[in-house]
């Protein structure tokens, strides 16, 4: 069941932050509720921090443990300034709002229709699990043929919240408090409580595949050659 505006507000205002049913969306900035609330959704704004893709020093992207720090450049665009997203460029942004979902609520982030009509696409992985907390990282793509200006602080997407039935509610009833109920679900520390857009975090492919029994994994290794009197030789990449 999709949560209506009244239920969203009840969970935000009536329940204490330590209550497992409490919903956090902060800061919610509006003059009138109708500016950000629809009957069944809440508008979220674009935050000030972005991860812009770097030009790689190799002709491919290799999703391994080191890729989270090598893929992007962090940029801060203060409110009132803008970021130009070139045609066909993709960037990572984040919502201005920090959210914490209750133990029995899932969410989905959708591009606002007015934004979508400028051919800016927000979110290709829109699902948010119960108990998630943090500013939502937004994968933003300009799929149009012209550059588009993004202004931090503008409404860019909408959050739809859905109640999760029996299993989690049962855990909630058993647990009673946040600590115990959280202990029943895994804590994904990789994406716990971010306030900036977060780069993807991968394990090395061989470690991931070993979990399903794959013991031989092809890799693409960069090699450096050096000249010797006997011809070209491969240099140990660790040197």
């Amino acid at each position, binding site marked *: 069941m999709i949560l209506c505006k009244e239920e969203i507000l009840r969970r935000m205002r009536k329940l204490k*932050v330590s209550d497992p049913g409490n919903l956090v969306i*902060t800061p919610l900035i509006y003059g009138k509720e109708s500016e950000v609330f629809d009957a069944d959704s809440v508008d979220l704004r674009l935050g000030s921090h972005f991860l812009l893709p770097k030009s790689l020093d190799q002709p491919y992207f290799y999703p391994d443990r080191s890729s989270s720090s090598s893929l992007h450049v962090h940029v*801060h665009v203060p409110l009132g300034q803008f970021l130009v997203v070139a045609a066909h460029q993709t960037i990572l942004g984040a919502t201005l709002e*920090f959210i914490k979902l209750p133990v029995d609520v899932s969410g989905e982030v959708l591009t606002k229709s007015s934004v979508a009509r400028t051919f800016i696409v927000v979110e290709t992985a829109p699902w948010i699990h119960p108990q998630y907390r943090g500013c939502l990282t937004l994968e933003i793509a300009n799929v149009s043929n012209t550059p588009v200006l993004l202004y931090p602080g503008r409404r860019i997407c909408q959050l739809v919240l859905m109640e999760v039935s029996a299993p989690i509610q049962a855990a909630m009833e058993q647990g009673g408090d946040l600590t115990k109920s959280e202990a029943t679900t895994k804590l994904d520390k990789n994406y716990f*409580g971010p*306030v*900036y857009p977060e780069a993807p975090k991968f394990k090395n492919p061989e470690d991931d595949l070993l979990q399903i029994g794959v013991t031989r994994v092809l890799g693409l290794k960069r090699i450096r050659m050096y000249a010797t009197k006997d011809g070209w030789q491969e240099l140990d990449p660790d040197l």
Partner: protein
Amino acid sequence: MIPAPLIDLASEQLQSVNGMKNSKIVILLASEVMYFQRPHTDIKDEARIVESFIPEASFPPKLGFIELPYSQGPSFFTNLAIYHEIGHFVYEEISHTNSNQSIADLQSAQDQCLQTVFQKRWKKDPEALALAARIIENWTQEIFCDLFAIRLVGPAFSFALIEILGMLGFLSEKETVKFHPSHPSSACRFAEHVNMLRDDSWWDAIADVKANQKRILEDLAKLPRSKYRLYVDDKTTGPQGLITAFLDVVVPAIRKLVKSLTPDSHLAVKRFSSSRSNIQECLHAGVVPLTTPTSPDPVSIINAAFCLYLTSLPEIINRFEGDKARQNVEVHSWWTKRVEMWTMKAVEDSQIHRRFESTRALYDPL
């Protein structure tokens, strides 16, 4: 990366300092180990040169340049040290332009201090007098900047300074009583911190904080003056009378000057006391402290978060990761960063709310 919300806040607070309206600060990430304020008289000279060949370019008349160690860029709590550096900027600015009576009183207190130490000997040894005058000026600035920072951001500044000096290994008993020509001793500085915090009622508001950093602050503040020693260089000690005269004559004038320039802190303490538990409850639950247009204010957020970080970080780790993780240094560092990020976000949110509220009434008809 730089702590943008903190810099925004500090710039805004700077506007409330008497004589500093329309001043601006620029933060530079530098490869130095310590925070530093570039004397802006040098910068003004360079700005004048630039203006001479780019006619349309004009630098703001009050522009401060503060260097921040790049290694500290992403952190929040230790970066509260920028308030001290802003103090240097303010001191330099008001010394040249302000006609504040307290400045005149401070300058005559410095003269009186030198007269007390040198009496009639100054004619015989003008070099020693000049050196002593420079030393007194350096100490004056350092104490001024510390007290200035405390007035703007409360006890969080003292805790940040303890953390920084601790990291640099300057908190050993031997080091803390040493006065150097450039700096008064840490013990003396912290004694003045505690005096100011008491005057402003911050000390009572944090009476229940049982943190190691606060204990260090208390212990250093309690050290008797007789333990203070002036070292002109690594081995040579200087005249003890200079310290005594500085503490008796100059320091009261510094306190008076700081109070005349900065807003009264009692209201800030009240706001902190009323919002502290809500802020800490949010952080404890792993959530950015909730902000509304009316509360909490950034100074309350910073102080409540710092107190929580100093006293309850292990509890938060235990809550989310279990008891064993508390001992793990990597885990501790990860959670420290998270608490700092949430604090920084709340400071940013609070300012967004405040700006929105202040302009809303003005622009609503549009």
